[in-house]
């Protein structure tokens, strides 16, 4: 286990990315051309950033160049949605700058260009509308540099938005599920829980399948002795583990239904599990408690193995999300404060709303942190990392985050897509949304993240010291 200083020095960092972007648009805001010259460093060695630009909004006529610059620093490391936040910032800030140039509301410009998002454009449209409503965009947004309502001589308020995408289809997973004659259920699986709710999700999938209380399910995970199942990464965990567990549960349930059908004077296909009972469909008086049913197993517990991938599709990939930030910038000190931050996100079928939302909140908070504070400072004279600590490698505290709202897209069009990962997508947009909000507030783009006072003041000075 590494302590914080070692973690910061050796565990690897998110690669940097810089870009010069030229975009062309028609007067009505339709983006027609994209040219980007981008570069970045992942420390020693290579990393791949190709094909990310332009991000989500794939302008048809485009030219992108990306150069990797190796440096003598520690290696890069996949860092919650590798490469997406960088590509997102570069793209969304270029679009927002174009909106400002055209004197357009960026919400309208993004709406207009949604066809560039391809198959999921309608999801983005719904999400943009929902997010705009939640943050009161139409009421609060003002043209760049004018300052949203509540602005004072020294403190300017602004709004910004961004869109993002991610895959998140489930990884390979094996699950052993055992139903004991006393009605309790055990799950064994190699995947571990980073604290994101893996255990919770596994227990819910089994408990829901058998229609039994959650505390009847014991979850054993994170051990090599258990069946092989992918690690936590790439937002691929929840899809994989829920699919294998669901299959193991359904198979076990079917075997139990076969066992009890004769006693209940019917066939297994006419039975279902509801409310702690096995019940004949359409004839609820013919029932047996789950416990009684499991007792039919005799002395032998029943074990099934579920696998992902399997026959049916229980998990798919590809999600979209929209975030909108409302910030205040002190133009005398360059200090940026979060007022409100809104996320609207889809991720297919949601197994547990609370842990899902926690992932989104957590991702947004990490997002505020990298947008405003987080930065590794290397001394180029000695090669030392100067801020391998928690005082100058800043993380947001509870007071720094402002008010958050999350809305998950559910129901028709979403649920039937199956289970999709959520860990990474909501951490992609914060940098772009907050950077756009700051540009909107102060009337000039601060070209580098994090948006520290020195950088904000430098941007203001370039513009002529006035906002």
């Amino acid at each position, binding site marked *: 286990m590494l302590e914080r200083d070692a973690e910061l020095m050796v565990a690897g960092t998110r690669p940097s990315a810089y870009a010069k972007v030229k975009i062309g648009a028609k007067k009505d805001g339709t983006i027609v051309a994209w040219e980007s010259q981008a570069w970045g460093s992942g420390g020693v060695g290579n990393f791949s950033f190709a094909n990310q630009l332009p991000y989500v909004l794939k302008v048809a006529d485009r030219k992108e160049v990306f150069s990797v610059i190796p440096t003598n620093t520690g290696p890069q490391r996949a860092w919650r949605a590798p490469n997406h936040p960088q590509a997102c910032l570069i793209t969304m800030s270029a679009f927002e700058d174009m909106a400002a140039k055209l004197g357009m509301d960026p919400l309208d410009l993004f709406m207009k260009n949604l066809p560039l998002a391809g198959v999921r454009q309608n999801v983005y449209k719904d999400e943009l509308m929902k997010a705009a409503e939640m943050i009161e965009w139409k009421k609060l947004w003002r043209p760049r540099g004018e300052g949203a309502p509540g602005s004072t001589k020294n403190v300017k308020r602004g709004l910004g938005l961004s869109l993002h995408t991610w895959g998140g289809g489930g990884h390979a997973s094996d699950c052993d599920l055992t139903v004991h004659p006393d009605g309790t259920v055990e799950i064994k699986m190699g995947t571990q829980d980073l604290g994101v709710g893996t255990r919770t999700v596994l227990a819910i999938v089994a408990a829901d399948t058998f229609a039994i209380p959650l505390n009847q399910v014991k979850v054993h995970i994170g051990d090599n002795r258990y069946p092989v199942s992918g690690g936590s990464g790439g937002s691929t965990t929840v899809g994989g583990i829920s699919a294998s567990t669901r299959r193991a549960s359904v198979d076990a349930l079917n075997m139990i239904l076969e066992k009890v059908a004769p006693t209940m004077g019917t066939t297994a296909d006419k039975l279902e599990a509801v409310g702690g009972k096995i019940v004949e469909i359409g004839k609820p008086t013919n029932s047996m408690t789950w416990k009684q049913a499991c007792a039919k197993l005799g002395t032998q517990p029943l074990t099934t193995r579920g696998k992902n991938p399997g026959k049916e599709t229980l998990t798919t990939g590809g999600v979209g999300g929209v975030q909108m930030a409302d910030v205040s910038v002190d133009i005398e000190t360059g200090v940026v404060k979060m007022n409100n931050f809104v996320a609207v996100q889809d991720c297919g079928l949601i197994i547990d709303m609370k842990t899902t*939302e*926690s992932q989104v909140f957590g991702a947004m908070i990490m997002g505020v942190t990298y947008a405003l504070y987080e930065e590794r400072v290397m001394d180029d004279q000695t090669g030392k990392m100067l801020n391998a*600590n928690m005082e100058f490698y800043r*993380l947001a505290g509870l007071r720094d985050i402002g008010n958050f709202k999350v809305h998950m897209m559910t129901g028709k069009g979403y649920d039937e897509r199956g289970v999709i990962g959520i860990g990474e997508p909501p951490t992609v947009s914060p940098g772009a949304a907050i950077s756009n909000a700051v540009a909107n507030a102060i009337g000039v783009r601060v070209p580098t993240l994090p948006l520290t006072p020195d950088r904000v003041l430098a941007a203001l000075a370039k513009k002529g010291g006035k906002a």
Partner: protein
Amino acid sequence: MSSSDERHDHAADANTSGESAVSRRKFLKGTGVALTIPLVAGGEKIVKAAGADVKIYGPNKTEITLTVNGSPKKVSVEPRATLLDTLRNDLDTTGAKRVCDRATCGACTMIIDGKPVYGCTVLAIEAQGRKIETVESLAKGDALHPVQQAFWDNDAQQCGFCTPGFVMACKALLDKHPSPTEEQIEMGVGGNLCRCGTYHGIKGAIAQASAALKKGPAKMTRGGKSNG
């Protein structure tokens, strides 16, 4: 010596560039110092200072007694041992976590004599005779303390490294301000950081715990509803 101390030793030895490293090497060779009292290896000794007898402890181990979660515990420590390391490594009390070890994150927060402090930044030898409470003191059997229950209900933890410290900071806050204002909440947990970003849940947890502490124990709920 813990592994981290060794790590730092190497770091300092390898660093021949800095002035502090130079003076440290000189120091290790014993050239720099002329103390009034000769240093001898071993437990305790008495020296005369301003006409009085003053006890000198260390650098070797001395036996101390710590009152941890209500019970006295005897343990032998070097003067440099922190309270956090002593609890974690010698007294099997691992609730408080070691993350920064520099008073900058709050993962090691415990309550001493009713006040929240960073256990990583207290010397064990200085914690004698004081009432030390760690997160282990909160639950009574299976019954969680209202603050713990509120963390659970509000999904206010992810990886859990910051959580024991946050729970203790919240408890100390609510002990002091049973109905905290927003400002008191922000000031009360302003000494704790969470990398996973659980602040939203923590705000909810504080509100719930504050209400529950006034009403009596909270009910357990299944974690399926929205964070709101």
